[in-house]
Every structure is written in structure tokens, then in C-alpha cells.
């Protein structure tokens, strides 16, 4: 299954088919005519054919629609906003977060808390970083505002857990250092769109 149809947001342009309505019969003669027409036309057998065709397609042509959910999963859109992920720099493996605090500031449900300090190189270091997922509404502002693409929304949508703390610490969200080579430059929420250059417009000040 490709992702294209998940990305298609032009929901008004699908090929809807309008079903024609016949005029409702008024006189008894017209009613009788409709009964006779329906008897001869074999519409009922068309219905039978449709279901049996569907059955054979489902059984032998692999068009079964059921997804056995815990065992197989449908692909989700890259712009899906699930549990956050903290990314690392690909070259050095250091986490990308520069501790600017923008995500904490913009968070409308006030669920991000971060604490920073200067390390020995006079570089901002994140000492504490938590997201309270009991409050988070997954609006995506934090990922949008992050200048370093450090916090993004990942695809991890199965968020039932016995404790909220299972997700919310910085270390839990950070890409594990040994999985760094699997970390992809993220196309999803928070990332710059592929056609970002075309979308750039001059600000009013440039005129």
C-alpha cells in the first residue's frame, strides 16, 4: 500500500458517482409496470453476483480488507503526529537539541519542561527534558518551532502504557546511539517540506 492516498488532501475531487433516481410511480399502472420491470430485470441476481464476486476476490485475489492489527500494521502518514522523538546529529552522534527552550515556550498545553546548563565547553546542555503526555495534545507546535529539527513527531502511535513516564523522559525519546545509522532525515511533521524553496515568498519589507 502506497502512502499517496494518505497524502492526498483534495477530498473534494474524488470520483463520486451520482446514482440516478427514477421518478416515483404515481398511478397503479405505473406501479405495476415497475414491479414487472424489476421482476424481469434480474437486479436481485446482480446483487447475488456482486457478493459472490467480492467473496472470490477476497479469498483468491488477496483483496481481503482486514488487517490483523497487532500482527500487521498499516503504514501511517509521515505527517502523523504521535509520540515525540529526539534526533541526534548524524556525524557526531550528539543530540541535536541546543536547549533554546522554544518548544517549552510555544507549548500550548504547557506540558514540556526543560532545564539547561552550560557544560565545560560553554555549550548549552539539556539537563532535564520531560513531556507530560497526560497533557500533550499532539498539536505539533514544538516540532514546528524547533530550529534544529531536534524534536519531531515519530510514528509510534501505540501509546497505551501503565505509566506516562514510560515515554516522557529525554532518554526514552532520544534515538539510541547504536541505532544512529538507522536514523533517517525525517520527512514528517516538523521537517521542512520538500518544496520549501518554491513556497518562500518575499516579506513585505523587501518591497
Amino acid at each position, binding site marked *: 500500500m502506497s502512502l499517496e492516498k494518505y497524502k492526498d488532501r483534495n477530498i473534494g475531487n474524488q470520483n463520486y458517482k451520482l446514482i440516478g433516481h427514477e421518478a416515483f410511480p404515481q398511478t397503479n399502472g405505473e406501479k405495476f409496470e415497475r414491479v414487472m420491470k424489476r421482476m424481469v430485470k434480474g437486479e*436481485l441476481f446482480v446483487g447475488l453476483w456482486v457478493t459472490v464476486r*467480492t*467473496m472470490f476476490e477476497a479469498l483468491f485475489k488477496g483483496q481481503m480488507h482486514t488487517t490483523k492489527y497487532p500482527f500487521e500494521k498499516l503504514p501511517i502518514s509521515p505527517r502523523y503526529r504521535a509520540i515525540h522523538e529526539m534526533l541526534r546529529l548524524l556525524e557526531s552522534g550528539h543530540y541535536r537539541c541546543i536547549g533554546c527552550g522554544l518548544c517549552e515556550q510555544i507549548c500550548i498545553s504547557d506540558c514540556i519542561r526543560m532545564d539547561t546548563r552550560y557544560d565545560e565547553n560553554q555549550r548549552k546542555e539539556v539537563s532535564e527534558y520531560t513531556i507530560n503526555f497526560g497533557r500533550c495534545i499532539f498539536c505539533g507546535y514544538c516540532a514546528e518551532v524547533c530550529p534544529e529539527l531536534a524534536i519531531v513527531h515519530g510514528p509510534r502511535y501505540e501509546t497505551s502504557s501503565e505509566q506516562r513516564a514510560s515515554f516522557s523522559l529525554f532518554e526514552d525519546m532520544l534515538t539510541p546511539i547504536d541505532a544512529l545509522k538507522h536514523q533517517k532525515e525525517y520527512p514528517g511533521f516538523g521537517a521542512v517540506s520538500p518544496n520549501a524553496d518554491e513556497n518562500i515568498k518575499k516579506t513585505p519589507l523587501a518591497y
Partner: protein
Amino acid sequence: MDALIIETVVKAIVVLLVISALAGFGTYLERKVLAFMQRRLGPMHVGPFGLLQILADGIKLFTKEDIVPQHANRLIFMVAPAITAATAFIALAAIPLFPEFTIFGYTIRPIIADLNVGILFVLGAMASGLYGPLLAGMAQANKWGIIGSARTAILFLSYEVVTGLSILAPIMIVGSLSLIDFNNAQAGGVSDWMVWKQPVAFVLFLIAGFAETNRTPFDLLEHEAEVISGYATEYSGMRWGMFFIGEYANMITVAFLASLVFFGGFNPIGFIPGFLAIILKVSFFFFLMLWVRASWPHVRPDQLMWLCWKVLMPIAILNILITGIVLL
């Protein structure tokens, strides 16, 4: 005489057990076939291909609390499911299920009672089975139940006349009411089947049979979208299960009747032996009921009455008249 009694009792027990088991298996088949026709998988997880789902459902039904509502008529409420289940099995008594076979040097005729009015007995027993829903709906002090039993009455008044009249024309041709005579009259292969002589009667009988078993085009009694569960609203546990077993046993009975009366019964077709032939035919009719349920919408009660009295009954009477003229 003793041997006859023992043989009959054994046959009755075997039929009871096998048909009950088949009724359980029928629920599995129904769920699977409906699922495939809707591109779903149906029961999958209990046992291989979900086969043990029947067992799980059985355990659930047996262990569920048996509730009798406060203002219900206790006695009738508790007896009604037994009527449905019992009459469904009583109807099977006069149906020859398989050809004669010999086991340990003892010839067995797989019919519990070879009545000379077999077909009347079967239809009568099945018709009295509708007392189950009728009494159940009225006894349970529930408005949905009352509507359900009112619809039972409508159903009963509608289809019964069509069943009798449609089957009358084949009876006139065969000249007997015994189902074994029906079977023997079609012994000459596929071309002898009654359905070629009486196609109209077959269609009418099939429609009436669907009504008789409360299957989908005419499932007015417990259509969920309209009357919650109709007559079965207040039932739970095994009492509800008895309604269910009765319904599936009735489906099997109607499938047997259709194959015996119109499709050559248990006569061998070419290289297919007789017992396999009738199993195939009955399976087809059972499948047809599930197929129709997946395909067609159901009708309103007034439409059913209109259909039965204004369309099907005149056609049936015309069919009888023409058959009579041809026979003369």
C-alpha cells in the same frame, strides 16, 4: 417391535446430536461466509481458522446468567425457546436424510418415522415452531418483544398460504405426501428432477422457505435496526441459544425439503453416490441462505404481506390450475 423402538430411539438421538452440532457449525459457517462476502476474515483466533469459536460460544452461552425479567410470565417465558428448538427437531423426524445403507449386516433407513403424510407433517411441525417467537415476545413484558411477536403473526399469516399452495403442484404430480415417494419419483437422473417440471413452484417454495426460517429478506422478527432483537430481546444464555439452534435446524430442514422435493433427493447423480449428492444439495441451499443474507436488503412487514398475498398466492394458484389441466 422392541428392535424398532430401540432403532428409532437411537436414530432420534443421533439426529438430535448431529443436527445440534451442525447448527453450531452453521453459525461458524454463516459468520465466515458473511465475512468473506464483506472482505473480512471472520473468526480467526480460536483454534485453526477459528473453528473452536463454536466451542467458545457454547461455553459462553452455557455459563451466562439466565435472566427472567420481573414482569414476565415466567412459565411461558421459559417454555417458549423449547418450543422453537423442539419443533425444529420434530420436523426432521419425517425427513429421509440419506439413502438406505447397511452397517454390520443391518439395513438402516435413515428416517425416524416414514409417515405417509411426511411433507404435511414437516410443514406443520415447522409452522408450529413459530409459536416459540410468538409466545416469547408476548411473555417477556417488553415492547420490542411485543412488536416481534406481532411481526411473527404477520409472517405466519403471510407465508403459510404460499408454502402450502406452492408444494401442492408437486404433490399432485407425484400423487403422494411421503417424502420417500417424492425421492423415488425423481430416481431417473437429473432430467427427472421436479424443478424442471415445476420451476414456478420451486421459486415460490424457496421464497416461503426463507420466510419460514426467518432468513434475511424476511427477517422481520428480530431485525436489530428496527426492533432491537424482536422476540429475543430479553433472552440470554442458553434460552437464547435454543432459539438459535432451532433457527439453524429449521434452515437445514428447509434445505432438505427443497432438495428432496425439487432436486432429486438422495438419488445418485452419475458417479456421485446418493448420500454425497444430498449433502451437496443441502450445503448449496444452506449456502444460498447465507449468500442471500449478504446480498439482499430485507423487506418491511407490509411488503411481505403484499408480496405473499397479492403476488405469490395468485401465481401459486395459477400454477396449480395449469398443473391440474396438464395432468387431466
